[in-house]
C-alpha cells in the first residue's frame, strides 16, 4: 500500500509515505520500542527526534505502549549497542538464540522495534541581516532566510514473526524568514516538529492498521 499525503502550510511542505510488507496489529500488553539506527552506519538521527516520536506515540486516547529506548537497550545489554544491534531482520533469529534475549524481550512485551534513520539539515539560506548597538540604543536591519529539510525513515520490525512489517517515511521541508527593521521578526518553520508529528501519526496508523488513515 502506498499512501502519499502532501500538506502545505505557509512555509512547510511535508510528504509521508508507507510501504507495507506484512500484516500488523498490536494487542493488549504489547509494546513498541523506538530506536535510532547505529551511528556506526553513519546515521545522525537526533535524540530529541526519537524522544519526540516516543512522546507522540504514547499520548492521546489511542496511545501505544512505548518502552523507553534507554531502558530497552540496558535490559538487553550488550545486544542493542551501536556496534552490536542487528542491522537486518535476518539477524533476529540468531539474536533471539543468545542467552536470555528472547526471555527479556518477552518479559517486556515488546512486539515491534521501530528503527529510525535520517536527520534535519539546513540545505539553503541567504539574505543579509546586521545589528548594531550604541550608547543611544541598537537595532537590526535586513532580511535573512533559510531552508531546513527533515528527512526520516522508520523501519518496523515485527518480533513475533521476526520479519519486517514495512517502512514509513516523512520528508518535510520548511523555510524560515527573519525580516528586521530595528526589531527582528522571526518566522520560524518548525520543520523537525512537523516531521515528528507526521511520522508518529503515520506510524500509529501503520501499527494498528487503521485503513482510514
Amino acid at each position, binding site marked *: 500500500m502506498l499512501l502519499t499525503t502532501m500538506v502545505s502550510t505557509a512555509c512547510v511542505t511535508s510528504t509521508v509515505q508507507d510501504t507495507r510488507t506484512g500484516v500488523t496489529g498490536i494487542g493488549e500488553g504489547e509494546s513498541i520500542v523506538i530506536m535510532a539506527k547505529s*551511528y556506526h552506519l553513519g546515521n545522525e538521527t537526533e535524540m530529541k527526534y526519537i524522544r519526540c516520536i516516543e512522546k507522540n506515540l504514547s499520548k492521546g486516547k489511542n496511545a501505544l505502549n512505548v518502552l523507553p529506548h534507554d531502558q530497552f537497550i540496558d535490559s538487553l545489554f550488550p545486544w542493542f549497542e*551501536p*556496534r552490536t544491534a*542487528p542491522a537486518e531482520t535476518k539477524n533476529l533469529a540468531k539474536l533471539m538464540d543468545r*542467552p536470555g534475549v528472547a526471555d527479556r524481550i518477552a518479559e517486556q512485551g515488546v512486539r515491534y522495534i521501530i528503527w529510525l534513520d535520517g536527520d534535519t539539515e539546513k540545505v539553503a539560506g541567504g539574505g543579509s541581516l546586521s545589528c548594531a548597538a550604541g550608547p543611544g540604543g541598537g537595532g537590526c536591519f535586513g532580511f535573512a532566510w533559510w531552508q531546513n529539510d527533515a528527512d526520516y525513515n522508520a523501519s518496523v520490525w515485527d518480533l513475533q514473526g521476526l520479519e519486517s512489517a514495512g517502512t514509513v517515511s516523512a520528508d518535510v521541508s520548511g523555510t524560515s524568514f527573519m525580516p528586521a527593521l530595528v526589531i527582528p521578526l522571526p518566522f520560524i518553520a518548525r520543520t523537525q516538529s512537523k516531521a515528528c508529528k507526521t511520522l508518529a501519526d503515520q506510524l500509529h496508523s501503520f501499527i494498528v492498521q487503521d485503513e482510514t488513515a
Partner: protein
Amino acid sequence: MNRTALLGLLLAGWLSGCASNVTLDPPTIPNPLLKQIPMSIGLRMPENFQNFVHQELVYGREEWSIDLGRSNAALFEQLFAHMFAGVTVLGPEDDPQLLPLDALIETSIDAFEFSTPGQSNTEAFAVWIRYRLKVYNREGELVSNWPVSAYGKSQSTTLGGSAALQRAAILAMRDAAALMIMKFDNVTQISSLAGQSATEPTPAVIPEEAESGDSGVQATALEGSADETS
C-alpha cells in the same frame, strides 16, 4: 577599579572561557546477557589507567582536560565480574603466582582521542579509546595481546558540550564492553586456561619483554563492524 584592572579581568574571563574541563563519573554497565566463563582471573590495572587524564589543545580554539578518573577501572571491574566466575583485583605489590588464579589480565590505554563539533563540522562530539588487554597464563607467559578499539558519539545540541563529551566517552566505554563480551574468548582463548588454578602455585615471573608490550603475541578481531550479530 581602574581601566587596566578591568581589561585584565575581562581578559582573564575570556581566557578561562577557552578552557574546558570534563570529569567523568564512573559508568554503570548494565547486567549483560551472557554466558559466564567458569574461571578465576586476576585483574591488574596500572596507576595511570585508574586515574587517566587526557589534555589536548584544540588548535586555535580551546584547551580541553578530560579526567576519566576511576571510570576505566570501574568499567573493567564491573565487566569482568559479569564475564568471569571469579575476579581478583591485584594491587601493585600483589604476586599473581601466589593466588589461585587461572589467568591474569593486564589492562592499559594505548590512545584516547576526541573530536568536537567544530572539528568534525557536525553537531556531535566523538570519542575513540584504544585499550590494550594482555592475558597471561598461570606460568606468567603472555598468551594474548589484544588492542580493543571503541567509539562513542553524542550530539551536543541536547546536552551541551561538556555533557555531550561525557556521554560520548561513556558510549565508547560501553562499546568496548560490548566488543569484549562478544569477542574476548574467541580472540584470546582465555577459557582454555580454566582449571589451572587447581594446581599448586608455582613461582613464575611475567617476562619483561611481555610487560614492555613488545611481545610478538598479537590478537586481532574484526572491529567497527556495525552488525556483529550475524
